[in-house]
C-alpha cells in the first residue's frame, strides 16, 4: 500500500511552516504525528502534493505547567507524553485519562493531542474534556498570533475555525478552579481502542454542596462535540442528587443529535448519553467534594 507522491518539508520554525503553507497552497497538508493524515492518504481520501511536518520545530513538543498560567501542550507533544506527564496526572487527571483512552500504545507513541483536536473528528477522545476545562487553542498564521476558545474551534466533521495557512501551535488549559472536579467516560465496541460510539466530559465547581458552575460536553453525537446546555441548567445552583443527575442525563440525551452508523445506532447513543452524563456528573462531584478543605 504505497502513498501517492508528495514533497516532504520539515521546517525548523513555525514562521517557515506558515510561509510554506502560503506558498504551496491549500492542497499542502500539515502533519504532526501523521496517524490520521497518513491513513487518509493510504485510503486515497486525500492526495496532498506537499506534506509539511511540524516534528522538526524545536520545542514544539514541550509540555509546560505553571501554577498561574496553567498547562500548555505543544503541537507535537505525544499522546503518551500527555498521558504520563506527572504535572498533568496531578493537576489535570482527566486530561491524562482522555489521552490514555486514545487508540492504543503504538498510536499514542506517534500521535499528538493537538493533532487529535485538529483532525476534528466528532468522536475524538481529547476534545470534550479540554472544552469542559475551557482550553484555549494557540494559533499562528500570516496575520500573527491569536487565541480561540476550544469550544469555538470545531465547525463540523473534519472542519475547524483555522484560516488558510494558520497553524495550531499548542493548547492552553487553565488551572482547575478550587472545589472543582472533572470526569470523562466513553464507550466503544472494542473497549476504548477503537473510535468512540459516544463520550461525555464534564467540569463541575461546587460551593458547599451546591453546583456553582458546570460545563458538559457530549462527543460522537453530532457534527462536533456538543455542549449540553439544558443538562447544565438542570444542575446549576442545585445539589447533585441522584434525581438531579438522572434529569440532567435525560436533558443531555434530548439535546444530542446522534446518527446511526457502524459504531452504534442513534437509539443506543441517545440512551448512553443519559447514562454517561449521569456517571460523569456524579464522578466529578465526588472529586470536587474530596478536593474541598474539610
Amino acid at each position, binding site marked *: *500500500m*504505497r502513498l501517492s507522491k508528495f514533497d516532504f518539508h520539515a521546517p525548523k520554525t513555525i514562521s517557515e511552516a506558515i510561509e510554506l503553507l502560503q506558498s504551496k497552497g491549500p492542497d499542502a497538508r500539515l502533519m504532526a504525528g*501523521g496517524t490520521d493524515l497518513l491513513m487518509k492518504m493510504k485510503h486515497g481520501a486525500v492526495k496532498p502534493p506537499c506534506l509539511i511536518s511540524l516534528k522538526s520545530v524545536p520545542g514544539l513538543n514541550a509540555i509546560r505547567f505553571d501554577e498561574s498560567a496553567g498547562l500548555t501542550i505543544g503541537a507535537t507533544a505525544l499522546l503518551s507524553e500527555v498521558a504520563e506527564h506527572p504535572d498533568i496526572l496531578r493537576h489535570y487527571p482527566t486530561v491524562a485519562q482522555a489521552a490514555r483512552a486514545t487508540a492504543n500504545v503504538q498510536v499514542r*507513541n506517534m500521535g499528538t493531542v493537538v493533532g487529535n483536536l485538529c483532525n476534528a473528528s466528532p468522536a475524538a477522545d481529547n476534545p470534550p474534556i479540554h472544552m469542559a476545562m475551557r482550553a484555549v487553542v494557540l494559533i499562528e498564521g500570516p496575520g500573527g498570533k491569536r487565541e480561540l476558545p476550544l469550544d469555538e474551534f470545531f465547525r463540523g466533521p473534519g472542519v475547524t475555525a483555522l484560516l488558510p495557512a494558520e497553524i495550531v501551535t499548542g493548547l492552553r488549559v487553565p488551572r482547575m478552579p478550587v472545589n472543582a472536579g472533572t470526569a470523562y467516560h466513553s464507550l466503544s465496541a472494542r473497549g476504548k481502542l477503537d473510535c468512540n460510539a459516544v463520550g461525555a466530559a464534564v467540569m463541575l465547581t461546587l460551593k458547599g454542596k451546591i453546583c456553582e458552575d458546570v460545563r458538559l460536553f457530549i462527543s460522537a453525537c453530532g457534527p462536533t462535540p456538543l455542549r449540553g446546555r439544558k443538562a447544565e441548567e438542570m444542575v446549576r445552583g442545585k445539589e447533585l442528587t441522584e434525581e438531579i443527575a438522572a434529569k440532567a442525563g435525560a436533558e443531555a440525551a434530548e439535546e444530542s443529535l446522534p446518527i446511526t452508523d457502524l459504531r452504534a445506532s442513534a437509539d443506543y447513543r441517545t440512551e448512553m448519553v443519559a447514562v454517561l452524563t449521569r456517571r460523569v456528573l456524579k464522578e466529578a462531584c465526588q472529586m470536587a467534594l474530596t478536593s474541598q478543605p474539610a
Partner: protein
Amino acid sequence: MTQKHEPGECRCSRGLTRRGFLSTVGAGVAVASAAGKLAAQPAASQGADVLPSAEMTPITLNINGRTHRLLVEPRWSLLFVLRERLGLTGTKVGCERGECGACTVLMDDLPRYACMTLAVEAQGSEITTLEGLMRGEELGGVQQAFVEEDAFQCGYCTPGQIMAVEGLLRAHPEPSQEEIQMGLSGNLCRCGAYVHIFKAAGRAAQLKRGQ
C-alpha cells in the same frame, strides 16, 4: 547529488531470493550485519537512470545499533524500507493502516507502527527490529518466552507481539496483568492466542530479571 539509483535494481531485496538470503546468512545478528553490507550498495548499484536524483533523498537510519545510509522517496514507509530495501523481514506487513501491530518496531524504546512512519522521519531515532533482539545466534528473552509459552498459532503477528512486549518491559520491567493487556492492545492476533501471549509477556519479564 550525482549518484544515480534505480530502486527496482536495488540489491538489498530484489537481488536475492528469500530462500537464498536466509540460507546464506542464517538468522539474527547475521541478518542485521548482512543487511548492513547490502545497504551500502545502492550508491554503487549500476541501475538504469530512471528516477531523477531530486526525487530520492539520502537518509541515515540507525537500526539495531548499525548505521544504514540509503536513498529513499519521501513517501516510503519505514516498514517498506526495512523489508524491501534492507532485507529485515522480521518486521511483518499486516493491515498497513496502523491497526494490527504486525509491523511494530521500537523507536527510542517506544513501540510504534513502522507502516505509519515515514522513513525520512525515522532518522535520528534508535530503531530496534525483531532482528535486534537476538543475542548472537541465541533468542532474546522475549523470543524465548514466546517459545516456552507456545504463544502463537500461525505466527504471523508474533514478531509484532514480541516487539510490543519488549517495549512494554523496557518501560515497565515488572508489569501487572492489566499493564500487559494494555501494552499489547495495539497488536491483533487473528488466531486468538492472547492468553498464551499474555503468559509469555509475564514469562519474558521473569527471564529479563534472570529468573
